[in-house]
């Protein structure tokens, strides 16, 4: 029982960080119908930036989010502008899958060029600090990371619900043509949306770098998890991806603790398939009247 609860605590804390990465991914899908296979590599890029800031200039990894987030925001905007904007036609979804994969490969190549393939991680002085609460271990980094994810997700929610930009994003998601006719610049929304998605990756990356060892190739594992999360949650549903991330975090942590780590991701993929068997649109993917 003790190990079960411990596993659930861990799973929830980890799930929070994945929720952050996945929310950016699903946001990008919602706006542009682009399955962003580069989301994982953007997280890794964020982690490397944090690493450099920390080792070269001693910037605290949590504080470095203030630098990495805007930086990756710009990267995201640039990527959208240069590589995704030119795509058009009926199969943009499929093309963008490959384009974002190419971006992932390219960034991976750049990172190996700059950093090599050595696994690194970010080790601030408090990296190994943990509390014991009622006999359960709660690591400081994990806890702060979780809270931070909640804060960033909250900000994202506010931006989408309360700002004019958020309204234009939602409008573009729901009816791009109509939004354009009202003066919403779809390219600009897409660029900003992609930037926002990349920014969440940066925030998650800074945290990821403290929790895990990583190298340029780490993005393959990340992206496979992110994809299952966003599909499980229902493509385009941010709330869904948060729930799915928590489900995934807890599921893999519990299976890991009670059975074996070698089956933990497997369990999750199987859960995904079962869910899709019953609900092909994922947990929160909507099927509305008139949609056929």
């Amino acid at each position, binding site marked *: 029982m003790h190990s079960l609860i411990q596993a659930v605590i861990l799973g929830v804390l980890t799930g929070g960080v994945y929720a952050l990465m996945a929310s950016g991914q699903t946001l990008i899908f919602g706006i542009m119908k682009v399955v962003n296979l580069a989301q994982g590599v953007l997280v890794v890029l964020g982690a490397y930036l944090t690493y450099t800031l920390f080792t070269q200039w001693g910037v605290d990894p949590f504080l470095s989010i203030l630098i990495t987030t805007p930086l990756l925001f710009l990267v995201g905007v640039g990527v959208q502008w240069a590589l995704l904007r030119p795509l058009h036609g009926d199969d943009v979804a499929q093309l963008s*899958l490959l384009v974002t994969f*190419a971006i992932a490969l390219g960034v991976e190549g750049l990172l190996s*060029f700059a950093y090599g393939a050595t696994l690194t991680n970010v080790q601030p002085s408090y990296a190994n600090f943990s509390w014991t609460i009622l006999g359960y271990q709660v690591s400081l980094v994990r806890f702060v990371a979780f809270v931070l994810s909640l804060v960033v997700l909250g900000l994202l929610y506010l931006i989408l619900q309360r700002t004019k930009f958020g309204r234009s994003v939602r409008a573009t998601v729901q009816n791009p043509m109509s939004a354009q006719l009202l003066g919403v610049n779809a390219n600009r929304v897409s660029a900003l949306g992609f930037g926002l998605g990349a920014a969440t990756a940066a925030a998650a990356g800074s945290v990821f770098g403290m929790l895990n060892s990583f190298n340029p190739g780490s993005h393959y594992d990340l992206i496979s998890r992110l994809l299952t999360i966003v599909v499980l949650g229902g493509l385009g549903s941010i709330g869904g991806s948060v729930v799915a991330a928590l489900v995934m975090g807890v599921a893999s942590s519990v299976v890991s603790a009670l059975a074996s780590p070698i089956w933990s*991701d497997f369990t999750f*993929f199987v859960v995904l398939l079962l869910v*899709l068997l019953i609900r*092909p649109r994922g947990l929160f993917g909507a099927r509305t009247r008139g949609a056929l």
Partner: protein
Amino acid sequence: MKFAITRAGLVRAGVFFLVLVLVPIVGGPGWLLNTLTFTIMYAALSSSWNLIGGYAGYPSLGHVAFFGIGAYATAIMFNGSVYGGYAPFLMLPVIGIGVALLSVPIGWVSMRTRADVFAIVTITLLFITQTLAFNLKEITGGAQGKSVAPAPFDVATYDWPFYYAMLIMLATAMAISMYFRRSKIGLSLATVRADEDKAHGVGVRVTAVKLIAFAVSSGLVAMVGGVWAYYVGFIYPQFAVDPLITIGMVLMAFLGGRGTLWGPVLGSFILVPAQEYFAQAFGASQLYLIAYAAVFLVIMLFLPRGILPSIAERLDRRRAGAAGAARDNAAAQVAPMPPSEVKVVR
């Protein structure tokens, strides 16, 4: 859209395969045969993928799972040195049929979803297969990998059987593509790709044709995997179920032109040598991935529909002068005819 076998088409295919058949006999250098074997392997994979990803419009990103299953089937059957020789080649049809049958329920589940989600679900398939390959140690050897008994072929012609096996796989995949296109299966697949709901509504046997395409495609890919395992001699979950193999098949079909007969072949004959060249020319300086990604992006941005369709489109446009006019006339005949003299009402 004409689907008759034209004489030019037959000649093209004949010359292509004749040249490839002759390469080992004429005796190109060893490296050529080796590179060609992998090139033809990818052409066969990509052509097989094209059956479901191109013609049916279901972009499977998990096909390497079947490749891996085929590879493991060979490795498991010929792990000892008891059989060997040509036996692994003779077992290929069994592997192909077995995997095709196995893929039917998998296809049935995953094709409940559409395009984007389907792509992602099939990625999941890839990771499930990889995990199973790691975890079912008793059968697969797990992380220790599994070797195939070395082939007892003479060193001078060692590559030949593998080369010809791959070539036969490519010919088979292309023949099946051709057959699909010319039969009602292809017609039905085209409706599935265009508008699956509507296809249901006009009585198309959607599930049947999708599963036929998926199963045939998976079976072919598994057979190629079987040849590959024997050729490489040692397999390991991450090698046999490598996401890059999936991406390879997809990318090559995209480059040459999805849903075309020659597109995947053309894509493979450009990308595989290019990839090898980049690995050798830039590998040491770490720029290999970047160069590969750049090629990738250039293709997607400038030839989004693939080389063959883009060329065809350009030719079409050149012919548009005459044909376009004819088309307008044809269309005009059914439209309510406008008054020949324009009358202005005031």
